[in-house]
């Protein structure tokens, strides 16, 4: 145990905490408290998730029948484009880092706040500005380029609001860069006395690796998007060959960011799983260093595999081979994590609270997502699977099965810390099961669809693909319900949930050693001092011999 004074059990719900020190709207909109900013993000990304989810629903409904009878082609194309842009730039990228990372990193390192509280607030405003621009694009008629903005379609041919959409992604990128910067400085400079690098929770390591990618990668997409805008507005030939440009250059630049970005969308989720698995099996994590370094390995090698999105783009065969080889390698650190989480259960004392169920779900679904990544990293099979529903299934398994599961896992785990209240545990477990089942029903058939050859982004399709599409849409409705239920009980819990107390899970980690919800400056007393490694769980009567 660290030497922090635990609040007396009687003071289960502190009278004053970060959320009720002030009540005015301005006190929220002008706050520099990382916890309040995290809540601002939580509310905003949840709204965007709902909007993105609505578009997904339209897409799935349209695909119930082979004919394009619900939406016309242009509308359908806008639906999947807006779905992708919103889910990726406005939900997934900020999800765990900007909400949980923001809330928890200062607590976990025993600091009063992030290194640059005002920049933190500024990041949220950038995000909101980007969101407003995106919504403007939507209201003015939408965009239809796909979230990948491939040229020359996006730069010359599309007649929709490409400029606004690109600007939205551009501004959102800066929000993400600044958050990453803030985390890196905080982790380097503001760790509590005794909190060495190898005592940091793996959640912090995961965010460190994520932040590196955000800082190094995001400027590339910003430049790329500016170039698209330049070509679109001033007709300068950069990507459009009829103006003297090179369309494949765009793909290189786009994926140079967007492949690493997929790790922005998974590493934080992995961080959450490491916290939750240890807590509910009352065990130290197995292979701490391996997990920590595998995050860094992913961040670094992840920058060298972008060409695996371009095996059929006329990229040279030899370049393709290098990218394929490195893609096989980048899967290894992910496998290491899965093995270490599994090994952590060994000789633990396991309980099955809702966060743990989500963590199990994460491991299963992420494993499928990662393994199918190999089918796409293998050039021979990728020439068949590329741009089919197989790819759609793969990335939903990692991004939704992985990251969204990880996000829900984390929210369920730290909800009592953030709000001081509990949610109904049985209902939460039922929702977790619904999400898991619904998810598989929605996306597993898409692997088969892809193998059969159904291309992605198709508004109409051949008759023989219908049965699998109907299964997928049916699954999506279960999934939708699974996401809806937590929304309801979380709101209920805010008002009527049982008081949780500072540490309802008896978890380790500095964030659990202050009140729930924490006071504005996180720790009532002096700064905590850390004298032991992370996850120093012990099971009674089973002291480790080693």
């Amino acid at each position, binding site marked *: 145990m660290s030497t922090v004074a635990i609040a007396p059990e009687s003071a289960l719900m502190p009278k004053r905490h970060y959320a009720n020190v002030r009540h005015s709207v301005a006190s929220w909109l002008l706050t520099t408290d990382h916890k309040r900013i995290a809540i601002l993000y939580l509310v905003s990304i949840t709204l965007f998730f709902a909007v993105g989810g609505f578009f997904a629903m339209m897409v799935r409904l349209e695909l119930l029948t082979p004919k*394009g009878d619900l939406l016309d*082609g*242009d509308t359908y*194309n806008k639906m999947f484009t807006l779905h992708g842009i919103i889910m990726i730039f406005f939900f997934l990228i900020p999800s765990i880092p900007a909400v949980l990372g923001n809330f928890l990193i200062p607590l976990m390192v025993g600091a009063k706040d992030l290194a640059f509280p005002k920049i933190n607030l500024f990041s949220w405003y950038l995000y909101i500005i980007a969101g407003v621009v995106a919504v403007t694009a939507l209201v003015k008629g939408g965009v*239809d380029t796909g979230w990948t903005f*491939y040229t*020359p*379609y996006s730069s010359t*041919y599309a007649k929709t609001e490409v400029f606004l959409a690109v600007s939205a992604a551009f501004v959102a990128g800066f929000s993400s860069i600044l958050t990453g910067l803030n985390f890196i400085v905080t982790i380097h400079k503001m760790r509590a006395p005794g909190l060495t690098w190898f005592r940091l929770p793996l959640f912090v390591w995961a965010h460190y690796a994520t932040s590196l990618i955000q800082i190094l990668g995001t400027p590339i997409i910003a430049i790329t998007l500016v170039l698209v805008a330049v070509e679109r507005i001033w007709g300068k030939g950069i990507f459009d*060959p*009829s103006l003297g440009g090179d*369309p494949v250059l765009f793909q290189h630049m786009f994926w140079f960011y967007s492949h690493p970005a997929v790790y922005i969308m998974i590493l934080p989720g992995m961080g959450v799983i490491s916290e939750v698995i240890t807590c509910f099996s009352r065990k130290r994590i*197995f*292979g701490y260093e391996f997990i920590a370094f595998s995050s860094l390995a992913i961040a670094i090698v992840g920058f060298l595999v972008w060409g695996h999105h371009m095996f*059929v*783009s*006329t990229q040279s*065969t030899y370049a*393709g*081979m290098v990218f*394929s080889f490195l893609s096989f390698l980048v*899967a*290894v650190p992910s*496998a*290491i994590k*899965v*093995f270490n989480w*599994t*090994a952590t*259960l060994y*000789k633990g*004392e396991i*309980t*099955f609270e809702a966060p743990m169920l989500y963590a199990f779900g994460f491991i299963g679904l992420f*494993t*499928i997502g990662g*393994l199918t990544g*190999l*089918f796409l990293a293998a*050039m*021979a*099979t990728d*020439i*068949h699977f*590329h*741009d089919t529903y197989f790819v759609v299934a793969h990335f939903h398994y990692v991004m939704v099965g992985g990251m969204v599961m990880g996000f829900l896992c984390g929210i369920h785990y730290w909800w009592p810390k953030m709000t001081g209240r509990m949610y109904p545990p049985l209902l939460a477990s039922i929702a977790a099961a619904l999400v898991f089942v619904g998810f598989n029903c929605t996306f597993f058939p898409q692997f088969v669809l892809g*193998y*059969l*050859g159904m291309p992605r982004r*198709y*508004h*109409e*399709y*051949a008759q023989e693909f219908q*049965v699998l599409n109907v299964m997928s849409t049916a699954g999506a409705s279960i999934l939708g319900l699974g996401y809806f239920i937590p929304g309801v009980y979380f709101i209920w819990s805010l008002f009527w949930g049982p008081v949780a107390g500072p540490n309802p899970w008896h978890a380790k980690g500095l964030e659990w050693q202050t009140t729930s919800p924490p006071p504005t400056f996180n720790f009532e007393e002096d700064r905590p001092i850390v004298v032991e490694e992370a996850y120093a769980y012990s*099971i009674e009567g*089973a*002291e480790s*011999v*080693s």
Partner: protein
Amino acid sequence: MSNVPLAPEQASTIAPKIDLVLYVLTGLSAFFLFAVCAILVFLAIRYRKGTKVNRVIENPDAKALELTWTIIPTIMGIAVFVWTALVYFEYSRPPENAMEILVTGKQWMWKIQHPNGKREINQLHVPLGVPVKLTMTSEDVIHSFFVPVFRVKRDVLPNRYSDLWFEATKTGTFHLFCAEYCGTDHSRMVGQVVVMEPEEYELWLSGANVGVPAASAGEKLFTKLGCVTCHEGTSPRGPALKGVFGKEVQLQTGEMIVVDEDYIRESILNPQAKLVAGYPPLMPTFQNQIREQDLFTLINYIKSMSDEQNAKSGTTS
């Protein structure tokens, strides 16, 4: 439900090879997935809270375990990589003797032109058992030519040629899809590949809609567009084009370049980009004056001049 297919037909020589990679990957993945899930469930049940089991951890040799599960997947990954790269090599190298067909993608249709000049739209007739090489280009955005039963796919780019080859092993009518998102009617940019017995194909080729054979059409264009005035005759102002295809030429920059489809294309559309050493920049640009298919006809004509040359030099030596 019984009519739900679970696998597409295999109708090309490469399809079974690709599927074999797929089966092996599926097997390995299923094994790993099953192993992880089984161990996870087993541990979760055995060590759930309240069970009376030994929880004392005795000197675990964690390093050895970590190394095992790092090295084994790495080696397996590398092995699969090498194999799949070899299959890919075969896919990416069209055989020398392949029959050549031109494909032009355009929002939202496929235009096909056979060697004898016959044209079709959204349909591609090919003979069984004959390697076919498609030379493809786009008139606007990027498309992607995808025939699931052949397991082949290649992007079709504007202002550039990409190729794709296959050898059909089954007669029948199969789906042709555009796989790269290209706007409003992307999902309607579909068609059919009709694989026929070679004799039937010959018959079909000589049937209705036969155009002028590419070579003689090329000769006409070559004259009509005035290429002859500079590239043939007694005092040509430009380099002779006979026999140039497939050879190396020296550019003004000193660089050597192999004359291929893309180079000829560029020489016609943007002659100043790569000047041949020893010639002034006289050649006018034909950008926006030649249709995509005529351009291809011209290129084929220049190629055919080289073939004659090669054939002749072949017989004399």
